[in-house]
């Protein structure tokens, strides 16, 4: 059933470095199957124990600001309009109009056809979040299901990049992955990465969405993470937010462990983006702790860690207000975008 013949895969340089120049479906499979297994009980236990860290006072203040800086403020609805996107961008620029010290988010994340609206609304603020700007991220490749031909996926990607998207959030072909066609998944990521190439030779950042809720097992998540990195992903991302469960702490911990192992092996740093289902500051702080204690705090920067979220921002703003005033306000004291 699986094409384990000698058909060569796309020559992604990371994979060639690690697996060898005769990159085939078979050599890729052998490599992925050689990865260490994951014990689900132990992984969940470790995640739960990281979740018990008690982050107070100055640490909490820093954590809340850092969460805001790492948010990809997202709207991915069929009902999205240019007006809605403008309002999202306004929120990204000025999360809390009452408190000028509030940092900006890292990026806004929209569907491909909304990229021009986002770029326009951002104006001069459009730029690299590590340099104080706000990026535009676009979901592409027939998001969220990914059920389209490769040509359509590539056109979707190239279109968003041409419109000014700085980051592409692609989905992997989960069907192919679950059927064991790792080579197909790999080749598609390589092709999408190539479609991220701009005329000047630079690339839009590629976030590879694994949709861990559909991969179902932690072993699959580890394999898919590793595969996505080998194929050239700059980021590995948990979920589309359209499938339940979306991001969970154990899944994110596991992906961080993969990224840590990749760094140990190659010295290269890959980003991680949990997305979907993270709504409370308290939960987001658990993710920061998990990042800091797994890969180190140097990962808590926009080009290495993001939260894909929409309602999280308002909860963080409420917590920020509580920290500065000592009182809880309420949902009427943060803006609905």
């Amino acid at each position, binding site marked *: 059933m699986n094409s384990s013949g000698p058909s060569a895969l796309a020559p992604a340089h990371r994979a060639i470095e690690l697996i060898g120049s005769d990159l085939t479906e078979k050599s890729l499979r052998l490599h992925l199957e050689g990865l260490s297994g994951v014990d689900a009980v132990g992984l969940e236990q470790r995640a739960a124990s990281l979740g018990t860290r008690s982050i107070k006072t100055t640490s909490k203040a820093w954590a809340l600001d850092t969460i805001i800086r790492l948010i990809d403020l997202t709207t991915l609805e069929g009902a999205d309009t240019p007006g809605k996107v403008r309002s999202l961008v306004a929120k990204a620029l000025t999360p809390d109009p009452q408190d000028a010290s509030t940092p900006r988010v890292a990026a806004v994340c929209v569907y491909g056809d909304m990229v021009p609206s986002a770029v326009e609304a951002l104006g001069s603020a459009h730029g690299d979040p590590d340099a104080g700007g706000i990026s535009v991220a676009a979901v592409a490749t027939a998001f969220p299901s990914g059920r389209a031909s490769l040509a359509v996926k590539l056109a979707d990607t190239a279109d968003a990049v041409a419109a000014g998207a700085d980051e592409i959030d692609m989905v992997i072909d989960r069907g192919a992955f679950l059927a064991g066609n790792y080579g197909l998944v790999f080749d598609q990521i390589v092709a999408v990465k190539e479609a991220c190439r701009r005329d000047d030779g630079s690339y839009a950042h590629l976030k590879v969405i694994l949709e861990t809720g559909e991969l179902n097992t932690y072993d699959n998540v580890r394999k898919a993470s590793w595969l996505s990195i080998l194929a050239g992903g700059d980021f590995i991302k948990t979920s589309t937010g359209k499938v339940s469960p979306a991001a969970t702490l154990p899944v994110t911990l596991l992906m961080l462990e993969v990224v840590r192992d990749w760094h140990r092996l190659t010295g290269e740093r890959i980003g991680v983006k949990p997305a979907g289902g993270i709504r409370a500051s308290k939960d987001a702080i658990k993710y920061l702790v998990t990042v800091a204690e797994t890969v180190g*705090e140097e990962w808590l920067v926009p080009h290495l860690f993001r939260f894909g979220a929409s309602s999280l921002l308002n909860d963080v703003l409420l917590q920020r207000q509580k920290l500065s005033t000592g009182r809880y306000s309420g949902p009427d004291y943060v803006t609905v975008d």
Partner: protein
Amino acid sequence: MSFLDYAPAPESTSILHLKKSYGLFIDGQFVKGHGSPFLTISPSTEERIAEIANANAKDVDTAVAAARRAYDRTWSKLSGADRGKYLFRIARLVQERARELAVAESLDNGKPIKESRDVDVPLVAAWFFYYAGWADKLDYAGLGPNPRALGVAAQVIPWNFPLLMLAWKIAPALAAGNTVVLKPAETTPLTALLFAEILQQADLPAGVVNIITGAGDTGEALVNHPDVNKVAFTGSTAVGRAIAKSVAGTGKKVTLELGGKAANIVFDDAPIDQAVEGIVNGIFFNQGHVCCAGSRLLVQESIHDEVIDRLKTRMSTLRLGDPLDKNTDIGAINSKEQLERIRELSDIGEAEGAERWSAPCEIPAKGFWFAPTIFTNVSTSSRIAREEIFGPVLSVLTFRTPAEAIAKANNTPYGLSAGIWSDKGSKILAVADQLRAGVIWANTFNRFDPASPFGGYKESGYGREGGRHGLAAYLEGGSW
């Protein structure tokens, strides 16, 4: 500022309402002891917590007499269902006062609050709930119909899990219908005395549980008292051996839960991140003051370097310090004596040629502390590979085949616990089958449940605690 220098998050001690001094709890009352009182201190600050009464032989006599009276007149006359009601009540009170008990335990013992809060105290409640359920079902304990209680149980417990060990001892004893005289360890009497207050709150009939404090001589007088029917001891193998000798021929039933030098076996097909976590949990949980600690790491030679590398990285994130801080992973060593023993054995390990590595953590100026430490290049004949250190010190050995792993794991006078790490279920079962240890954990370590019997082979003691087996240790068969 560094995020990882988490701001202090101390658990408040304001919930504690400690007395300046505590008496002995005999016949439902706190009474004066006739020995000279001693102090219990906090091992993390060396500050005094309270003055504790010292029971001499006369006090032991009074306590045993009270337990005998309570057995004859009250406890043995109650139905199992009524005994169960008291146990349920105690379990609920432990839950209600959980935070207070956790703070007291961390203060007196030095263990991190996250452990006393998330492990010790919840397990204490679980133990009472579990055995409360057994109290009216003794016919199903496996001893035939109408099993009988033994009478008065003398129980001596250690300092590593003060309240939990108390629960392991008292819950099955009471469920089975015995009365109890219990002696907590000299350095950690505090939670046992708070537990005595809980017994008063629960209206447990006077004399059913008596708690007497003191040192080794008090314990000796207790286990040698002619009117006790059962001796249950958890502690060192040396003391356990002495107890076994002294009760030989007396007709007292004995349960001994002694030392260990558990092998934690990591195969090359192990889930590596979870195995590293399990190694850390196995030896650094409770500062390694755990009789079933995975103190001998047996790692397959092919992955030795990688495992050690990952282990060191992980150990570098362990946070040593104030036991009451909610983010502390490694607390204080319980006593100066224990710290000296750990230091002495570690120095011997180094002198014998093993390579020592300690996690880089700041050691507080006051109190008793020992940084998490591993020894590599340890030979099987080295003392740190043979003797129980009872501290945060791991000895790493290697093996090449499952047969070698089994042989090395079993090559110890102890046999309390063992761990196996492999993604291959059939291998786990095959290896577990040949390990001579009372508890074997697969892809986990240091997990406890009241329904699961716990106990050792060889010099790790005899008898089982927990589960139906733990209940049977406090019963004798009725007539069929």
